[in-house]
């Protein structure tokens, strides 16, 4: 009897053991499969990167000897594409996001630089300086190519691995354990130290990082002065009530500013905190945020727009026209553009958010406005609106009269254009015809949904 119980116990033990073993085996195979899938993805990215860098190197060497303008343009276009693709590949590798920033910048700027040649209105001219720059970029790409080829060799020999999830080789018997490829990438990054500063007409050009705000001037203000400016700004409309300063910091962003934290007086809710920034130079209110729970919408969009317009007007923003709005999370964000002699200045925008339950203004943003706003020298248009309208595609059903607007066409670049709204089937487009030479400068498609629409 006793023996039998023992026997059952032992059988039971082995059944459980087998079960656990099987489960463990399943788990480990599954894990290995997942690792392989993940690693394969990383390897694909890596091989794409090496291929793109190979092409990039060859193209950069070709551009040094190419002479025909159309040949140039083609090569520059391909450099642009290859460099962009390489940048995408690089940023998808499992490396710390801050580790490869110089290499990443190299790809971005080479691509952007090439694109600036590609899109230039006049035939490409490779001046001596530009040729030298291209030559240096070629040298960089060339050594990068060699280094990547070296990593590739070690990867195939199993001496390196990419992901921190090792493939199942973490055995004890291996004499030389494979190393994480991270160190090799670090070397690449180190060699990117002396890439030339590239200045050209493109969004990633070196000089743009140091852009100064155009509309900020005057003397530096003190912290107490910033506090009183903040309070005046908040209390300008009596319905907003009274406020008290909780905290003030000086931030060193693009526009150095005092960040002032306010609470309402008397304190209504602990979370009811308002933050606004007052520029150190000139004492301008740059932005404001207020967080609170927003309840069911009670007021119409038209009402909210009027509240926003009035809010700006009281604070000295005159002649602003609403250009766009968006409804989200119980609030509406209005974008207003400045005008000059009735011409809409699209680059100079101020934004206001209105909570749709009570109509309270919960946000204000003008730092972009202070970066770009200035009095433009607008040349009189050489085309009339009727002449401009004739440049539109005959397939479009034109829906608007057309108005004069200034649009940004690149960093630090603007053009005076006529804006038309047109319809093709159910799609709405905005077309911008240059008011001086009749060229179509820009074509935008308006995406409408129930939450947002471009207001015209």
């Amino acid at each position: 009897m006793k023996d039998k119980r023992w026997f059952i116990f032992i059988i039971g033990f082995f059944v459980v053991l087998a079960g656990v073993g099987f489960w463990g085996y399943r788990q480990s195979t599954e894990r290995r499969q997942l690792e392989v899938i993940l690693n394969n993805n990383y390897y694909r990215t890596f091989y794409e990167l090496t291929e793109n860098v190979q092409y990039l190197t060859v193209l950069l060497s070709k551009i040094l000897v190419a002479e025909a303008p159309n040949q140039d343009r083609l090569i520059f276009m391909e450099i642009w594409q290859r460099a962009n693709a390489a940048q995408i590949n690089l940023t998808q590798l499992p490396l710390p996001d801050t580790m490869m920033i110089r290499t990443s910048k190299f790809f971005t700027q080479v691509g952007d630089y090439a694109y600036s040649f590609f899109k230039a209105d006049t035939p490409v001219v490779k001046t001596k300086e530009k040729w030298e720059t291209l030559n240096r970029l070629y040298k960089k790409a060339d050594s990068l190519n060699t280094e990547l080829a070296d990593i590739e060799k070690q990867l195939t020999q199993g001496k390196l691995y990419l992901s921190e999830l090792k493939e199942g080789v973490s055995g004890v018997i291996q004499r030389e354990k494979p190393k994480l490829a991270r160190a090799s990438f670090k070397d690449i990054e180190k060699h990117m130290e002396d890439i030339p500063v590239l200045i050209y007409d493109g969004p990633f050009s070196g000089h743009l990082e140091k852009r100064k705000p155009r509309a900020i001037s005057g003397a530096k203000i003190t912290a107490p002065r910033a506090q009183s400016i903040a309070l005046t700004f908040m209390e300008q409309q009596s319905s907003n009530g009274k406020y008290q300063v909780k905290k003030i910091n000086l931030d060193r962003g693009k526009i150095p500013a005092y960040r002032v934290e306010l609470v309402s007086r008397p304190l209504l809710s602990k979370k009811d905190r308002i933050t606004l920034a007052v520029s150190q130079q000139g004492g301008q209110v740059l932005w404001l945020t207020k967080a609170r729970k927003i309840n069911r919408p009670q007021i119409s969009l038209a009402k909210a727009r009027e509240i926003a317009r009035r809010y700006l007007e009281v604070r000295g923003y005159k002649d602003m026209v609403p250009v766009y709005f968006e409804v989200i999370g119980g609030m509406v964000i209005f974008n207003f553009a400045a005008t000059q002699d009735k011409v809409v200045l699209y680059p100079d925008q101020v934004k206001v958010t209105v909570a749709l339950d009570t109509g309270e203004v919960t946000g204000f943003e003008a730092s972009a406005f202070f970066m770009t706003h200035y009095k433009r020298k607008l040349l009189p248009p050489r085309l009339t609106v009727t002449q401009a309208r004739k440049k539109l595609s005959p397939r479009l059903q034109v829906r608007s009269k057309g108005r004069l607007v200034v649009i940004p066409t690149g960093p630090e670049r603007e053009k005076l254009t006529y804006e038309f709204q047109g319809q093709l089937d159910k799609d709405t487009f905005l077309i911008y015809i240059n008011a001086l030479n009749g060229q179509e400068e820009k074509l935008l498609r308006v995406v409408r949904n129930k939450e947002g629409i471009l207001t015209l």
Partner: protein
Amino acid sequence: MAVLGTSYAFAQERTLYWGSSNPDVSLLQQQLKNWGYYRARVDGVFGNATQQAVINFQRLNGLVPDGVVGASTWSALGYSPGENVSYHESVGVSRGVTNRDEIYLLARVIEGEAANEPFAGKVAVGAVILNRLRSALFPHTLAGVIYQPHAFESVANGQYNRPASQESLQAAAMSMNGWDPTGGALYFWNPAKAISPWVWTKNIISQIGRHIFAR
């Protein structure tokens, strides 16, 4: 290794207009036909049908619709560019017309990274992500920035998959519309957590809530 696709090797400079009749006209007609502007026979004679096709082509390609095939029209057709060719900038959707899916994705990352931060701190996290988009150092798409390996802790550990709160959604929308409490920061970190000493070499802009912002 790398072979460049050769361009069309026609050294085409001749201007064509109504009444022209030569092999180049056939070339023109063929190309216009390929692209669906010209429907008649390719006969090498520049007649009314050809002229209409040219004008339509010019209109839709930002050229002066004069029905004369000069250097710029040849170039737009894909043949050798003459002087003063204008290429169009890549056409995008206006900054104002935002993609809703992107707002929700951004809101979830804000929720994951800054759920317990003050509102300005939430907007600031959104702004850092969007500043990266415009920086040469980082990927140039929102998904690229958010899913860059090792970039955001909440993405790496899956926490960002929680639904976003109303506040995070508001913060996402506001950062998309230009609010940037950090004044151009590219990095943020919580000094109470274990972090790489490398971050302290960056230019610190400010501290909002528990996060330090730097560029």
